[in-house]
């Protein structure tokens, strides 16, 4: 079956612009995670959804970052007034449920470059 998909694959934007990153999880997966991977760094957890709700938003780096999930499926990560330090690969993962017991399946990521 289809895996996790993300769009766009690459996004170049100018400082100060808003961007939207999209994630399509595996069908039937109720948990969805967003991570950020900066150059030379590991993955930094941003936010997760169980269904449509995001119980913990503390991982979001600033109030310029927001995320939503509708219909228990597609999720959008929005970055407002982008800054150069936002440049990174944004990875999305989904799993059957919000527990470490369940394997997380990752998408190919969106590489964001802020000029």
């Amino acid at each position, binding site marked *: 079956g289809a895996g996790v998909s993300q769009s766009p694959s690459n996004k170049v934007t100018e400082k100060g612009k808003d961007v939207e990153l999209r994630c399509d999880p595996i069908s039937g997966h109720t948990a969805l995670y967003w991570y950020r991977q900066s150059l*030379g760094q590991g*993955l930094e*957890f941003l936010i997760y959804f169980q269904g449509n709700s995001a119980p*913990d938003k503390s991982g979001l780096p600033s109030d310029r970052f927001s995320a939503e999930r509708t219909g228990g499926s597609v999720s959008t990560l929005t970055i407002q007034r982008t800054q150069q330090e936002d440049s990174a*690969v944004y990875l999305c993962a989904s799993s059957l449920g919000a527990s*470490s017991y*369940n394997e*997380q399946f*990752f998408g190919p*990521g969106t590489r964001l470059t802020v000029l």
Partner: protein
Amino acid sequence: AQTVTQSQPEMSVQEAETVTLSCTYDTSESDYYLFWYKQPPSRQMILVIRQEAYKQQNATENRFSVNFQKAAKSFSLKISDSQLGDAAMYFCAYGAPGGSQGNLIFGKGTKLSVKP
């Protein structure tokens, strides 16, 4: 807070040889999960192997095995009979048990090169 440390930014191995990647972690929990993920240039993270902390037996998956030392909080990955396709970034990750979250805490990764 839990942390994961990978002390080897880069490693190199000859094709068909064996290589071990190191990982240490810090937690006050007694039950948790540990993972090794592979990230090739395509950026797609792939789960290589998983270890449940309450299990004494080290996990194995074909050419991949772990050496899990719970007391030392060490979780190394051994790749036997290395192949060119094993070249990638390898990330060690920690996951808390059960609960309602499930996000993983990752190390900074080890870049593995395989020489023909």
